[in-house]
Each structure stands twice: as structure tokens, then as C-alpha cells.
């Protein structure tokens, strides 16, 4: 029996990659017995242990694998920053705090194929000399936490975790740590603070986690999907991984598509595919496209033309001044209202700002309150310019990348859909009277 999963086996006569999704449609693929029948843990053998740590890191560098959590940093390079022989342990921390609005890939990975993550963690842990690894998982994801804990227990029972894995001499323990409802904890240094039991506010870098992270020891933080690609690369080599994707964005990636398409869901596609083709793969667009958020809510929005011409790789989106981000694709049609979409995004960022840096804490709040006024038909001339000013003021003036991520949707929605905002202002008979800034203070909204 197969599980419900919308991705077809072939598309336009070509096979789609199944590096990360091999077990997504296999019943009980989350159990060790079934996963093993499909080749799980085949790298936990001479394939891995006959190679040196250096060779594995080199292979991952050559594969061109990049971080799939959002920033797209080259994974092998991140690993190569870890200093050796410092006398401190090296920690591997898996970022499973998936919370970027529109993203729902990691949660599916954790329920459908948790053993691939564990196998990837053993591969990575061996390459980096890790004895203790953590999975930091979003606290609300109860089914995923259960699935992962069950899989870890199965792996321990089968001698795939713990002391002397499969007689290799390599030992690894994995601990699951729950988050507690804070978007900011997806930022790696905030995640580390949270892992240590503190409130999850980001740390100023440097020092980078690779040098001084969890418990002041060298720490590598990688996304779930990133680590799930590692066993394939270790087993088949960098060249095999590069059969998919583009030269600079090799391999496959998971994309979560929601919004105005017929078959929303998680798909694994080669990087470099056109968004237009991806919409077709996902059952086709509903209605006439107005725009698309190409990589999660903080990725600058694309207008209709850009959406249909862009390709799904890091370089194309960077050229369009947007980003691939977490791979959350949300196209929306002409029946949707960009102003209230931005209002909903701005409310989210105002709520989730951790409060550490003043420009972000105050700026996101003011933008949110201006948008509430505008959306309620109480906008005044100058409000749009004021939002732009505020967003630019917090874009690059804070400790972490949250503030730029909160600024980009504001700046891009205003740039691409200005006429919609102006139409809202025109709804207010007093729009020309100008704005009294006191009307925007938090107290004015109580």
C-alpha cells in the first residue's frame, strides 16, 4: 500500500529525484524494518567507516550541497570551519524548528522517514568527530516528536546509535530537545541559547557557532533536510548528486507549495526548475496569478511576470533580489489582496521579534500598526513612505537576520503592488490630512 503523496513518479517523461523522499509514499516507511528493506542505513558500514573524516567533508564540499533551512550556506564549507583538537567536544545540532510561514517539509520528513535523518546524523557526526548530537524540534510538533523518539529508540536497539556503532569504534548519542513556540529559535544562535535552557535570543557573531556554540564548544547547526541529503552523497558520491540541479545550485530540494494551486503539498524537485513548471506539477494554478512568495514569508515577493520566468535556484532568486529560503512557495491569484497579505506577514514579525534589538522590536511594531490602519481604511498620505523608512531602518541594524527578513516583505510588497496600497489610502476621506505619529504608538492601539 502506498501513502498519500501528491508527487507523480515521472513528470514530462522524466523521473523526478527521490533522494530525500524515497520513503514518502511507502506505508510504514518510518519503521526501521521497512526503511531497511529500502536501503536505510546502508552507509553505516565500510561505505562510511572506511573513509577518513577529511574525505567525507571533501565529498560534501564537492557535491555543492547548501543549507536547506533558508540561508543556503555551503554545507561542506560550514563543516570545514570546525576547529580540530581543541580539547572540547564538537556538537551537531539539527534544526527542526520549522516555522517559516508556508513551510511544511521538515514535519513530513520527520513522520515519513525519520531514519534517514538519523543516518545522516551518523554520517555527519562521524565526519566531524561528534559524540553528542541534538535535534532541536519545534515544541508544537507532537506527532513528529513521537515519530523521531520512536525511530531513535529503534536505532539504539539495533546498535545503530550509542557505543561502538556496528563495531566501527564510532559512538554517537542523540538527544531530542523541544522548542516552546518562538520563531526566532530557528536562528542558529537563538536555537543554541534555547538548547541551553535560556530564552531564545540570538548571539552576536563572531564567534560563530562552529568555533563557540552550544555550551561554548564548537557546534554545527544544520537543517533536517540538509542532513537527510548526506547519506546519498556519502554512498553515491558528489558527481551522482550533481546529476540534479544546476552547476551552482546542485541537487534536489524539497518545496512546500500552498496558496492558489490545485495540489498543495511537499515535492522533491531538481533545483533550477522553472516556477511555472512547478505550478503545473502541483496541479496547475487556480485563477490568474498576481504574485508569488518564492521562499517563505521573509523572501521578497515576486510579481506575476517574475513568478512565471524565475527558476528555483539560489542564483536566479538572488538576481531578482529575493531568495530561495526554506522552499515555501505561495503563489496567489488576482482575487487576493496584497495589502492584507502583507498586513498578516507584518503582524507575524511584530509578534515574533525577540525584543533584543530596539530597531527591530520597535520598527516591526510600528509597521504592523500602520498596516492595520491602512487595511482598516484609515491610511494617511505618507504612511507608505513611513513604512519604507522604518523597514530600511531595521533592515541591517540588528544582531540577526530576523530584521532583514521582516523588512523585505514590506519593501517588496510596496514596490511590486504600490497601486493596491494607494487604493487603500484613497478609501479614507481624510487621507490628505497627514499622519499624527501619536496615533501609531502601542498605547493608541490598546
Amino acid at each position: 500500500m502506498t501513502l498519500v503523496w501528491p508527487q507523480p513518479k515521472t513528470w514530462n517523461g522524466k523521473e523526478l529525484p527521490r533522494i530525500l523522499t524515497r520513503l514518502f509514499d511507502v506505508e510504514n516507511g518510518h519503521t526501521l524494518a521497512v526503511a531497511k528493506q529500502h536501503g536505510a542505513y546502508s552507509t553505516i558500514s565500510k561505505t562510511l567507516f572506511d573513509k577518513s573524516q577529511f574525505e567525507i567533508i571533501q565529498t560534501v564540499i564537492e557535491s555543492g550541497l547548501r543549507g536547506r533551512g533558508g540561508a543556503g550556506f555551503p554545507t561542506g564549507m560550514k563543516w570545514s570551519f570546525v576547529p580540530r583538537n581543541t580539547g572540547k567536544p564538537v556538537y551537531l545540532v539539527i534544526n527542526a524548528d520549522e516555522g517559516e510561514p508556508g513551510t511544511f517539509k521538515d514535519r513530513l520528513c520527520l513522520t515519513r522517514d525519520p531514519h534517514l535523518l538519523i543516518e545522516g546524523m551518523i554520517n555527519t557526526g562521524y565526519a566531524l568527530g561528534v559524540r553528542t548530537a541534538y535535534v532541536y524540534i519545534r515544541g508544537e510538533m507532537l506527532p513528529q516528536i513521537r515519530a523521531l523518539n520512536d525511530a531513535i529508540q529503534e536505532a539504539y536497539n539495533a546498535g545503530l546509535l550509542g557505543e561502538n556503532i556496528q563495531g566501527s569504534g564510532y559512538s554517537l548519542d542523540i538527544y531530542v530537545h523541544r522548542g516552546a513556540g518562538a520563531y526566532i529559535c530557528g536562528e542558529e544562535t537563538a536555537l543554541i541559547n534555547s538548547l541551553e535552557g535560556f530564552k531564545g535570543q540570538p548571539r552576536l557573531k563572531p564567534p560563530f557557532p562552529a568555533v563557540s556554540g552550544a555550551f561554548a564548544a564548537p557546534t554545527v547547526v544544520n537543517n533536517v533536510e540538509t542532513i537527510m541529503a548526506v547519506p546519498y552523497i556519502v554512498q553515491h558520491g558528489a558527481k551522482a548528486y550533481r546529476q540534479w540541479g544546476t552547476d551552482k545550485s546542485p541537487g534536489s530540494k524539497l518545496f512546500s507549495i500552498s496558496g492558489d494551486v490545485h495540489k498543495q503539498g511537499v515535492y522533491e524537485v531538481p533545483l533550477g526548475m522553472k516556477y511555472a513548471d512547478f505550478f503545473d506539477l502541483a496541479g496547475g494554478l487556480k485563477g490568474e496569478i498576481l504574485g508569488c512568495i518564492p521562499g517563505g514569508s521573509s523572501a521578497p515577493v515576486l510579481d506575476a511576470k517574475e513568478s512565471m520566468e524565475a527558476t528555483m535556484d539560489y542564483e536566479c532568486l538572488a538576481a531578482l533580489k529575493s531568495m530561495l529560503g526554506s522552499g515555501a512557495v505561495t503563489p496567489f491569484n488576482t482575487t487576493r489582496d496584497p495589502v492584507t497579505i502583507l498586513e498578516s506577514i507584518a503582524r507575524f514579525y511584530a509578534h515574533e521579534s525577540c525584543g533584543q534589538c530596539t530597531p527591530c522590536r520597535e520598527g516591526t511594531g510600528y509597521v504592523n500598526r500602520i498596516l492595520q490602519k491602512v487595511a482598516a481604511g484609515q491610511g494617511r498620505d505618507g504612511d507608505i513612505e513611513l513604512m519604507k523608512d522604518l523597514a530600511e531602518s531595521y533592515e541591517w541594524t540588528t544582531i540577526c537576520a530576523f530584521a532583514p527578513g521582516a523588512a523585505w516583505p514590506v519593501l517588496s510588497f510596496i514596490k511590486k503592488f504600490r497601486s493596491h496600497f494607494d487604493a487603500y489610502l484613497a478609501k479614507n476621506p481624510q487621507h490628505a490630512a497627514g499622519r499624527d505619529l501619536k496615533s501609531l504608538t502601542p498605547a493608541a492601539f490598546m
Partner: protein
Amino acid sequence: MSTNDQPAAPAKPVLAQPAAPGKPAAPSDQTAIIAKRWRAKRGSLIMALHEVQETYGYVPRDVALKLAPQIGVPVARIYEVLTFYNYFKTSAPGKFVVSVCTGTACHLKGSGDILANFSAQLGCKEGESTTDKLWHLQGVRCIGCCGIAPAVIVNGKVFGKLKPADVGDVIDKVLTADAAAAKV
């Protein structure tokens, strides 16, 4: 810092179901058990607080005060963490917690109207509980159910692809399921 201060095997998954409201629990015993389980493990305050919340449905003040010395963490740090993280509650929620997703995908598909309808039908505002403490209504950030937007979670059960008119049905379903569970 060595890795030896971690036990060899992972802690047993702690996923106790929330205690049913009204079910008596002895705070001091329960707190001692939780403190003992997590005291020696570095960075485990959040895990300990999860267990408290799973036991009581929220983190009662007296439990937090008792937990602090037993786990070796100042009360101020416990409250720093409790108030930073959105998941932790410091007062008892309603029996049925309705979480309406306000993420981008759900917003597109009309979560605003869903929230408004719940508010009207339950007679309480977002972020508040009904006077009989039976229902608590909250808007929450993206819950990762974007594929079945707009989505609502009531006590862990997900309702997807809702229309504003379905709100009454959801309320009925929750009450019916609860009545059926009470009979067993």
C-alpha cells in the same frame, strides 16, 4: 567540558497527555519527580517546563516556585523562559483550546473570517477564554498545515480546508467527541 555529564542513553520520551481539568494531582510529589528527572541534565529547563505543562495544562505559580530550588534554577530564570516562549501558559486555559492558524497560506484562504466566526459563536475574543472556561480561542503562527489551509487545531486535532460556515460544525464535532469520550 566533557560529554560525560550526559547519560549514555537518551531520556525516555516525555509525552504525557495533559491532565484532564479537575483531575487531582499532588503538586509537590509531581514536581519532585520532574525536578529529579531533569536536574542533572544541562540546559533542560525548557524540557522540565514542558513536562509541568503536560501534567497541569499550564505552569501553575506554586509549581514554578517549588521547582526552582529543586532543579537549581532561580525563579526569575524560570519566569524569563516562561514568558519568552509562547507555548507556555501561566494560567489555566479553557478545556478546549482552539488555535486558528494565521500564517500566510491560511490568511490567503480566509483565516480571518474563520477566527471572527469562532469569536462570534463562542462569545470570546482572540486570546481569551469563555466565561465558563470551556473554550479558549487563540490565533497562532504558521502551524505547517499550509497544504490544507485554512487550518484550525482544537486540542491537538487538526481541521483543514475550512470555510467560515464550517465553524459551527467544528464546535459540534469537538463537543460530540468529548461527550462520547466521557461515556467510555
